[in-house]
């Protein structure tokens, strides 16, 4: 499913950066950056509360498709600047990591 369509259906607010036309098959939820670096599948949506610049660096290096900031965490300006440069879309949701993951999984019809 297209990232833009997922965002619309789940009510994610786009904060900035990058292409939303990507096709998404799965997500990865973690707040530990090395965990993401080592285990997140490429092209997945990264669900987290780590709202800072290094999150973008990790997403970019690990080849992830987008970042979703949970619990309405705000992205600082330098994070959005980095997201623009690295072409990584950043979204925000009021849901916590559990519910954001659950709803994404259900929408993508994951087993």
């Amino acid at each position, binding site marked *: 499913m297209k990232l833009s369509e997922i965002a619309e259906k789940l009510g994610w607010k786009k904060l900035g950066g990058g292409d939303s036309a990507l096709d998404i098959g799965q997500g990865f939820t973690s707040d530990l*950056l090395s965990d993401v670096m080592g285990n997140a599948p490429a092209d997945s949506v990264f669900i987290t509360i780590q709202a800072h610049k*290094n999150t973008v660096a990790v997403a970019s*290096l690990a080849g992830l498709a987008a970042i979703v900031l949970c619990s309405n965490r705000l992205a600082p300006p330098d994070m959005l600047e980095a997201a623009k440069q690295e072409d990584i879309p950043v979204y925000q949701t009021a849901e916590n990591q559990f519910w954001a993951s659950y709803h994404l999984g259900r929408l993508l019809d994951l087993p």
Partner: protein
Amino acid sequence: MTNFSLDSSPSVVLELTLRLKIRDVMTTQLITAEKKDSLRHIQQLMKVNRITGVPIVEGKRLVGLISVDDIIQALDGGFIEEACEGRMSRQLIVLEDDMPLSLGISYFEKYHFGRFPVLNKDSELVGIVSSRDILTGLLVEMNKEMEQLEEKLSPQKEVGTTIYSREFSLHKFDFEHAGTASGTIKMELKEKGLDPKTLRRVAVASYEMEMNLIVHSLGGTLKVTHMPRQTVLEARDVGPGIEDLEKALTEGWSTANDWIRSLGFGAGMGLPNIKRVSDDFHIESEVGKGTLVRSVIRHPELGGEV
């Protein structure tokens, strides 16, 4: 980036602000007062010592700050004889002595205070830093640096089959630039045509090495050497060294503090991640001396043996 040249002399200043710590420039001879002291007493302290801010302490713990503005207000409002406790600023922005100078400079830009109290790891007040301290500290170091710079201007050596080689210097707690070295390596190796899967392994290893240097080391270098059949990454630091290598290589084991963990680092997966993506992995460490981590990633698509 570590190889200085005259062309990049402004980067020497940048390097300096990253390498120097707040503790290198801060004033350690502290003039402090206690909560019960009157504002009048503090005004006298300022006058005698020619300073514009006095930290209020309980033992070694910082509990507030009186600035010259507070004194003016006290004189104006007629409460100069009162104890400072009710008038001091309690919501303080502080620096940690281990932070790089660059962070201190950004604080001055951000908050427009004349000075910042400096705390150590145990949250004890150990110094105070003003913008003047930073300038003086920088000038002194710059002089030393200029002398060393001249010695470093010798030509670089060529390496046999190397297609591309580059060295980055990394500084403790420099989260501002975290990911820059590995980002550059990834981008430049992509341009050299490295296949996406191998590129990702290089990215993982270089990022973890970079973060290890920033989070755990006292500073060091990350070197990448790209050859036709393999890419070699080497992280070398100047300390503090790893006490128990076996533990350091165990997933989930970490020595990171709470502050580091709150940023999402210190998951205890850095070295295990590097080992996992490497075809050859080597680590050696000596406490008090430093650590060397080497990762060799072969290029199967270009005929490198796996």
